[in-house]
């Protein structure tokens, strides 16, 4: 099995999509690692659904507070210029289109940019803020392993898991590659070191648009 990028490299790649001044929602799990890769000189406001814009890094021992946590319930810090607010305002920021970018995990993404990341057969379903995020934030980057633990493709023709939203994903970053979701289908944009377009194709169920430069 081809390794490609590790999680830190994927987080760094995702961080490169963030512009100066952006407000960015980070999903729980792998996306929180993006916090560590913001180039100095950029002011980025990380949004956490539980009511903070301007999340800092994770809190160290001795600086934690039980009422200061992120969406994954981990103790965090905040930056100068941060603000706290209740849940209705937090989701108004998302639903109302005020957040520039969300970076989140996924179980499956379809070639049309449909997303599944909240439940699967036999699983206790949990939705959290995922449906609100995809309904309101225009730019959604999915960060995930290219295949499941047992090697099945997660980038598929049609979702087989229940959808979180339709046509909502704009970019997919996996350990193998970076793809853009376009009107014409999935466009292979970058390959991880040591990964070929053929490797990506064989690990992907949906069809791909592969530019000459990468084939």
């Amino acid at each position, binding site marked *: 099995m081809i390794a490609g990028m590790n999680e830190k490299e994927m987080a760094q790649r995702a961080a490169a999509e963030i512009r100066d001044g952006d407000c960015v929602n980070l999903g729980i799990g792998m996306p929180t690692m993006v916090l560590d890769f913001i180039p100095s000189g950029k002011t980025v406001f990380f949004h*956490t*659904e*539980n*009511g*903070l814009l301007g999340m800092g890094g994770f*809190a160290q*021992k*001795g600086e*934690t*507070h*039980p*009422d*200061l*946590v992120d969406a994954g*319930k981990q*103790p965090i810090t905040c930056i100068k210029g941060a603000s*706290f*607010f*209740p*849940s*209705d305002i*937090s*989701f108004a920021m*998302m*639903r109302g289109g005020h957040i520039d970018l969300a970076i989140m995990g996924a179980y499956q993404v379809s070639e049309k940019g449909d997303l599944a990341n909240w*439940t699967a057969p036999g*699983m*206790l*379903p*949990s*939705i*959290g*803020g*995922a*449906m*609100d995020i995809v*309904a*309101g934030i225009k730019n959604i980057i999915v960060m995930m392993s290219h295949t499941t633990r047992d090697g099945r493709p997660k980038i598929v023709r049609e979702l087989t898991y*229940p*959808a*979180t*939203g*339709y046509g909502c994903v704009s970019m997919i970053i996996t350990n193998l590659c970076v793809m853009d979701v376009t009107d014409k289908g999935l466009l292979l944009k970058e390959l991880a070191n040591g990964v070929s377009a053929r490797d990506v194709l064989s690990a992907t169920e949906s069809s791909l648009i592969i530019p000459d430069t990468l084939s």
Partner: protein
Amino acid sequence: MLNKTYTSSLEALHDVKDGAVIMFGGFGLAGIPQNLIRALYEKGTKDITVISNNPGSRLGDNEYGLAILFKAGRVKKYIGSYPTATKSFKELYDAGKVGLELVPQGTLAERIRARGAGIGGFYVKTGAGTLLAKDKESRDIKGEQYILEQPLGADFAFVKAYKGDFYGNLVYRYTGANFNPLMAMAAAVTIAEVEELVEPGMLDPNTIHTPGIFVKRILKGERYDRWYE
């Protein structure tokens, strides 16, 4: 000479009956009314419908907050957004012993606010076309699909604030606000526990997050656990 102060959590719950529908503020363990939850557990109230973002929260091998009510079999139904991380809920759910209404988090917040604000229903794109919209009316608005969501109220709201005064004015801190100010508006009886209870006039009226009009009872919480080092 109005004073909404109660001297203990248990006393503030005097009229909470079996079968009550109760909203609990908090996200994970941040901003949960931990003293009111413990008092409700001690009181033995059962067949509760719980409305809360999470049904308790896990830290290491232990579960805290609302989990004690689920574990003790006191809850009939849970309405919220994120139960997965709570093992004691999952066990009851897998055994068919507790009902579940799953609501997207932003829609949950907005439905609760709608009840508090006298809004009869509202349209959102969130969840349109998904399993969670199954029995919901949908509507095309400017070429996009929206679904109709209903207000959500309760018999009681248990909320937690950092500071409060005898009139029920509340101030939150950090991410401890979350659902608390919304739930405070949406229940027939809102009971607030606070870390510091002060006389009216001690809080700056410009920085009050929940005006006392929404709060019927207030008390100083007996004990505040800190779960992180």
